């Protein structure tokens, strides 16, 4: 499978994008609507004109038509051919190559089994559920043995449960086949769950490319930080294990208890919405409870962000508007903070850096584009 390089890519909102996607990697392009994610996917597929250069395995493919780039593309709307049954949909690309019928049948059968839809082979798309359509679309995209798989928010129309299940399956297929994959989504949790690395795109600019943990704990710009929910990120100086699975981390003078194995915590992070704010001292044990003074209040579209000075550390809590009115919060007021234990995320340098190192550029990145084994139409 080739690695993909985008060099100085410009098109519509996208300006001067440079991105390297490693061989066999699952790269998620993450960003809000209209940020240019799908445009980037279409550029890699060759479905739109663009400025700059796209390289597969070190060789430019700019002059190669989409039909010959050996890509599998899963569209957001799936676009299964309504006039063909499941089997025909999957066989479409193979029939275009004029392969012998028994070979086509064998390959279709293999994909039906891989995607667990053998029982649906004679059905038409209108008789399939959302999840089943998804599997058919995936099988159809994989049928011509593509070298690059492109997925454009493929699970956005499914219920959460099915989407989560299919996400894991897609990841599993991707690893089994070792296919270089680009997955577009606007959903951070989806990206974190599936990605080897995440490329955060905003207004057509590439803001950061890193492993999911790095993006969350080391956002390189305010745009990235805002997109992931502007978490409170604290550096931890030392930590000690209290008991199995419970660690106390000392972060800038604040003792914070977290659920974690091991004692090499480097950073912790929690979202503003994961802090409770109270005017009176909360009852119960004093674990992950702090008192401080409001230093600043900032209003966003959905909630107020209240900055609280706790022993010199600035913690930001998200407070709904109606609570703001009830509590009459104002700068200088003394408040109590409670951190939700289960929502505190931990960056453990000993394992997170290892993940990051997996996708350093391999030595053979400029290896020649693989010889095509099957004739292309």
């Amino acid at each position, binding site marked *: 499978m080739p690695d993909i390089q985008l060099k100085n890519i410009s098109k519509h909102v996208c300006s001067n994008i440079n991105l390297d996607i490693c061989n066999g990697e699952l790269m998620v392009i993450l960003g809000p609507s209209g940020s240019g994610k799908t445009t980037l996917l*279409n550029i890699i*597929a060759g*479905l739109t004109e663009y400025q700059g250069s796209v390289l597969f395995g070190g060789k430019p493919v700019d002059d190669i*038509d*989409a*039909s*010959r*780039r050996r*890509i*599998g*593309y899963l*569209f957001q*709307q799936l*676009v299964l*051919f*309504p*006039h*063909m049954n499941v089997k025909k949909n999957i066989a*479409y*690309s193979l029939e*275009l*190559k004029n392969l012998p019928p028994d070979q086509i049948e064998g390959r279709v059968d293999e994909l039906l089994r891989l995607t667990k839809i053998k029982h649906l082979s004679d059905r*038409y*798309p*209108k008789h399939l559920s959302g999840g089943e359509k998804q599997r058919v679309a995936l099988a*159809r*995209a994989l*049928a*011509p043995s593509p070298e690059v798989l492109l997925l454009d928010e493929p699970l956005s129309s499914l219920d959460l449960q099915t989407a989560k299940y299919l996400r894991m399956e897609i990841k599993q297929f991707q690893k089994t086949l070792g296919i270089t994959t680009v997955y577009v989504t606007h959903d951070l949790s989806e990206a974190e769950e599936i990605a080897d690395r995440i490329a955060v795109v905003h207004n057509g600019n590439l803001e950061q490319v890193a492993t999911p943990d790095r993006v969350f704990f080391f956002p390189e710009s305010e745009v990235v930080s805002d997109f992931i929910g502007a978490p409170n990120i604290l550096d931890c100086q030392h930590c000690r294990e209290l008991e199995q699975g419970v660690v106390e981390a000392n972060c800038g003078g604040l003792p914070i208890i977290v659920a974690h194995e091991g004692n090499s915590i480097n950073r912790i992070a929690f979202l503003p919405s994961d802090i409770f704010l109270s005017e009176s001292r909360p009852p119960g044990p004093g674990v992950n409870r702090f008192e401080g003074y409001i230093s600043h209040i900032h209003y966003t579209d959905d909630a107020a962000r209240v900055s609280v000075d706790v022993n010199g550390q600035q913690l930001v809590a998200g407070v709904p508007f109606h609570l703001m009115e009830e509590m009459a919060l104002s700068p200088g007021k003394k408040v109590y903070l409670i951190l939700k234990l289960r929502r505190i995320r931990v960056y453990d340098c000993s394992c997170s850096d290892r993940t990051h190192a997996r996708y350093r550029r391999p030595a053979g990145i400029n290896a020649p584009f693989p010889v095509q084994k099957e004739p*292309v*139409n």
Partner: protein
Amino acid sequence: MTHKKSAISKLKPGWGIAPVIAFLVIWEVTARLNWVPGQFHFPAFSEIVKEFFNLTSSGVLGENFAASLWRVTVGLIAGSIAGMMLGIVMGWKEIAHKALNPIVSLFLPIPPLGWLPLLMLWVGINEWLPITIIFISSFFPVLYNTIAGIKSVDKDYVKVSRTLGASDLKILTTVVMPLALPIIFTGLRLNAGHAWRVVIAAEMVAIPTGIGALMLRAESLIRIDIIIVCLIVLAVMTYFFDKLFGYMENRVTARWY
């Protein structure tokens, strides 16, 4: 709460014939009792049936019907094929649409029968005249529906076909055309009705054979019964053609729409 079906919606489709029978009975009674005003004799339905058998057994109806049917069939098929061909080119290639649409738009508003005087001079008063008129009347609806059908196909189907390795021609023939069929069929069904209307007019004006000509001769002989027989034949044929195209459309698209 369960939805209760009304008594009318429970009726079997066969009951659709009931209003027709009621109409025919009223017709028969009013004609026999001479309740229909006017200076000419208004024939009862039974007389019409009798005349239908007379005309059929003498071969007059069959001969004229065959002449009209032949003209409709040839004109309709030729006009539809030509309309579809040009429609495919104009719907698929934007450059062709841009170049030809202004011209086509100029010709479209002309009623098909408006061409009659011109065609009488160019084509002459012969068998080709009604065929040419039907060709023109079939051509435009199919042309426009083919363009609309092809343009209505979601561009993502084209994109996904390309990523699956399809050439432009393959995309057109295996994906775009099949998906455009329902709209193209709408044009074909419209045509079937138009063709019968147009052939009658052309035969009345210029051609001595066909159902239209037979009606005109019946008018000069004040044979209202023959005129009504011809009208019934026309109604049945238009209905039949519409159902035929509807059936063909259903056969093609029912499984997937």
